[in-house]
């Protein structure tokens, strides 16, 4: 168990900058998810924390101790790889045993054949067996002990990889997209299982994924990365409700947030197209802004209602709710998420009006920075 401090980490491969000074303070026992599109540098950051990659600048400390010059094997952290990286020639039991063999046995005791005659070998091996049994019992893979990884399903391999990571009680767990090789159903299941494991172990988890659903469901805090920059680190609900950057708003949330072009007039009133958003004001006056509206904050109404006229071009029925894709008359396309009962009124081809809930509209400036100077007035 340890806190991990990441300070101004920079990394470039040749002339390509992958990380431009990323800093995060990860608290002891926290589950933090690094999320971002592929190529944003999140895996590289994880590998730098692990010690598998050397940063060009900045430093990493674990338990307030700098580890930049420590080899991966000395950092006492465990990692679960995307491909699981199990040793294919070893059985499940032997795979889980490896980290303990490497740490508890001396070089002489590890020697083939001769090692077992070294003093203390048996006691250590008995201890290792106990620990391995405990882990396999916890993970429910006791029946697989003598199988090789090639004979296991994806989910089982995943569990073995987790077992190999947790058997030596590391200071922190690093996970590099551990669920991306599983099918959709198993992924949802393992999501809950890993979150549960974290609660039980109370160890620091640093988890990398490109799947924002994983980030939102598992994390204590989500760190959104893009193009080598850390955009925002916050709780899942804050990242969703109060994104500080338009790129965060666009990345988090499915379906994607609707972005509409808007103007702020001299009095602070906001207009989208030719419609004034009632009850919403911005302190930055006389500028062009962008208005982000989550699909659930955007509802369809009768054509006579006050709002932006549109035509429904597509609808998706998900059972409990429905997504409506609408083409605005002022140009642009938006998605509205409504209760599926709305399907009785609106279907593809209908004319309708888009109504924006001003309380849940997010304002961004032209550069994509969040405008916090949103003033609400009772409508």
């Amino acid at each position, binding site marked *: 168990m340890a806190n991990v401090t990441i300070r101004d980490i920079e990394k470039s491969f040749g002339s390509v900058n992958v990380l431009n000074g990323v800093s995060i303070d990860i608290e002891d026992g926290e589950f933090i998810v690094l999320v971002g599109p592929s190529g944003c540098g999140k895996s590289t950051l994880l*590998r730098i924390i*692990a*010690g*598998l990659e050397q940063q060009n600048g900045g430093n990493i400390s674990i338990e307030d101790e700098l580890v930049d010059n420590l*080899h*991966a*094997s*000395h950092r006492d*952290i*465990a*990692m679960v*790889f995307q*491909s699981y*990286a*199990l*040793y*294919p*020639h*070893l059985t499940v039991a032997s795979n889980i045993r*490896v*980290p303990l063999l*490497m*740490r508890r046995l001396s*070089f002489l005791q*590890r020697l*083939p054949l001769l090692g077992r005659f070294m003093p203390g070998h048996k006691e250590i091996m008995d201890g290792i067996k106990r620990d391995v049994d405990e882990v396999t019992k916890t993970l429910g893979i006791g029946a697989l002990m003598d199988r*090789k*990884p*090639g004979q296991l399903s994806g989910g089982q391999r995943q569990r073995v990889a987790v077992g*190999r990571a947790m058997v030596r009680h590391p200071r922190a767990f690093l996970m590099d997209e551990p669920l991306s090789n599983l099918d959709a159903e198993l992924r949802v299941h393992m999501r809950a299982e890993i979150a549960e494991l974290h609660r039980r172990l109370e160890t620091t988890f640093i988890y990398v994924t490109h799947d924002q659903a994983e980030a939102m469901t598992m994390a204590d805090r989500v760190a959104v990365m893009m193009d080598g920059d850390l955009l925002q680190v916050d709780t899942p609900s804050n990242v969703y409700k109060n994104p500080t950057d338009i790129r965060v708003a666009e990345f988090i949330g499915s379906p994607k947030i609707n972005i509409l072009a808007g103007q702020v007039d001299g009095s602070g009133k906001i207009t989208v197209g030719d419609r004034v958003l009632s009850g919403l004001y911005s302190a930055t006056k006389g500028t062009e802004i962008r208005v982000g509206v989550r699909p659930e904050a955007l509802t369809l109404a009768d054509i006579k209602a006050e709002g932006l006229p549109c035509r429904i071009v597509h609808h998706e029925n998900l059972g409990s709710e429905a997504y409506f894709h609408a083409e605005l008359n002022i140009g642009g396309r938006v998605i509205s998420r409504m209760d599926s009962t709305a399907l009785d009124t609106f279907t593809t081809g209908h004319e309708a009006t888009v109504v924006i809930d001003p309380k849940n509209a997010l304002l961004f400036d032209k550069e994509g920075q969040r405008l916090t100077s949103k003033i609400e007035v009772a409508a």
Partner: protein
Amino acid sequence: MTDRAAVIEQTPNQGAPLIAAKSRIQWISYLFCLPAITLMFIILLVPIFVAAVLSFSDYSLGNQSLNWIGSKNYEVIFGRSSYQKMLWATTAYVLIVVPVSIGLGLGAALLINSLKRFSDFYKAIYFLPVMAALLAMALVWDLALHPTVGYVNQNLRLGCGTMVETILSFGWLPFVDGAQSWYSTSCADEFPLWIGDRDYALATICFIGIWQAFGFNMVLYLAGLTGVPRELYHAAAIDGVKNGWDRFRLVTWPMLGPTTVFVVTITAIRSFQVFDTVEALTQGGPAKSTYVMMYAIFEKAIRENLVGFGSAVTIVFLGFVLIITFTQRYIVEKRVHY
């Protein structure tokens, strides 16, 4: 074929003709395979069969008739001392060349693989003996190993009485009498005749065999190394593997298992087949110390026209190779594919 069968099946009201058509198609399929099967029989199987039959006779090329002599040829091979020497020389050659050339090949491959620069240069250098014609190279070795004018002995002689002798006589080690060492006694007396000395000839032939074979093994291992997943090394580092030996034991060596089986099989078969160096340098001598099987076959069946006896040696030879191949196929392969 299945497509046509499907078409025929769809044709209605053709109960009996349908079956006839199906069996005709099966016959046609065999007909298509016939050229390949015929060639396989004529070129591969029949000669082995003929050799096996002739090995029970005293046939010589050009003879109108032959006498069946039962297993006498085999009794000679396994009974007479000169042929026991042949089996011994062949086995010794294989047992020395295979492990040493594989060890060196693996070592060179690991070293080259760890290089960031010049790896192509080293690959080319080590691969040179493989590309060179061994017969031509044997002539070069013949010159180099000449007892008096060969540069091997000339250079060894240069070292006598100098620091080289002090070092190579190992007198500086505790409990070693430098004056009794191989180098010092050779300096005082004479350096070996190498291929002309029955105690050194087989070792020299083995040395040339290793020199020639290890570059090939190195290339095979280099190819094998590219197939080791990088992530396993990373996992090993995370798991606490600190030194190269543990990394080799945990990841590299097991992952190279299939390559090793292949390399061992190929090298063993090629070592059984050693011929050109023996023919060019020693002709099986001195005192039959380098009388390997391939050379015996050549000498008996071609030079002395004892085709029956040569066939018997060939069959024994084939037996050895088959044993190696089947061991590889059915025992070892199962344990290296995970």
